[in-house]
């Protein structure tokens, strides 16, 4: 079955609410990294870890109860999302510029 046809049968849920969440939280992560004074890899690592923690919160609070009541196993995100990878890594790229901006700003503000 072609991808086009697959999408017509199972329409994709838009990720707009999640991408909103990521763009707001990533700026807060930037503040965190800046105040802690992290540099280079440490900062990006903090961003990665905190983003994954945010996604875990979303999963536990929103996705898991619905999935369980539908008889799906733990860790299965197919109730709302196309694939596991899309759910876990979808917001990373969109939040990155905001993270770098606030990280730079607070890094500069804290260490004049």
């Amino acid at each position, binding site marked *: 079955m072609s991808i086009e*046809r697959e999408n017509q049968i199972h329409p994709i849920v838009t990720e707009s609410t999640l991408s909103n969440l990521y763009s707001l939280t*990533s*700026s807060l992560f930037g503040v965190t990294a800046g105040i802690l004074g992290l540099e280079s890899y440490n900062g990006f690592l903090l961003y990665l870890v905190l983003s994954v923690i945010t996604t875990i919160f979303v999963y536990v609070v929103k996705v898991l109860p619905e999935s369980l009541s539908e008889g799906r196993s733990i860790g299965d995100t197919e109730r709302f999302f196309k694939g596991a990878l899309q759910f876990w890594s979808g917001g990373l790229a969109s939040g990155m*510029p905001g993270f770098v901006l606030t990280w730079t700003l607070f*890094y500069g503000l804290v260490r004049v």
Partner: protein
Amino acid sequence: MADIPVQTLHRDPQLFYWILIPITIVMVQTGVLRHYASVLLQTAPKKQDAPAMREQRSLGRGVALRSNYHSLSKKSFESRRDYLISAYENGDFLKEPEKKGQPPANPMSDPGAMDGMMGMMKNNMAMMIPNTLIMSWINAFFSGYVTMKLPFPLTIKFKSMLQAGVQTKDMDPRWMSSISWYFLCIFGLQFVYVFLLGNDNAASQLNQQMQAQQMPNPMMGGPGQDPDKQFKAEAENLAVVDHYSVLDDVEGRLLASLKKA
């Protein structure tokens, strides 16, 4: 690799108040302004007479049928297709059937056509003018200052971009001038706009460019094109559609899902 001693610069704390904060405030406000400008500049669609409307809408109907055929059954799709193709080829929907085959009028002389172009011009202007203004404003007032240090290292190639106007040869490329703060703001202020204006705002220029790419043919049925030729092309497009329905084999899928559960 030998350890390069970390460069330290003593910067005046006043730089924050007089350079960073003004640039950031101006960038946020231009985004908000751009959002409201694009809301206000949207012209309401002009009222057209019935034949012109019919010409546009019937072309749109063909396009809609071609892109949504999967939700129709084969029989109903084919009856719609046969009707539309024969009507397109006879020119039943044309605004001026007697003008068939003549070259279209010059779009500049048609006042209705000018309106559509003005709309596009306005949108482009709302994007272009603030950018050029702010760039030249920053270049005129704030060039030559080192304002900040990036928290991550960069290669030497970034030096010419980040330290434009700062002529210090051996400075680490991590030090950035005010113009690079401007670039960071362009890319990174999306979260502020989401916070202030909601999700589908028109503030970020990146978003607008993406939307412009998603609309490959904004001028459909627009001015300066021969409607008869557009109808003929649409008839051809409809004729080659290979129909299938989403309901094909649906009972098999239902049974499979029941068996799994």
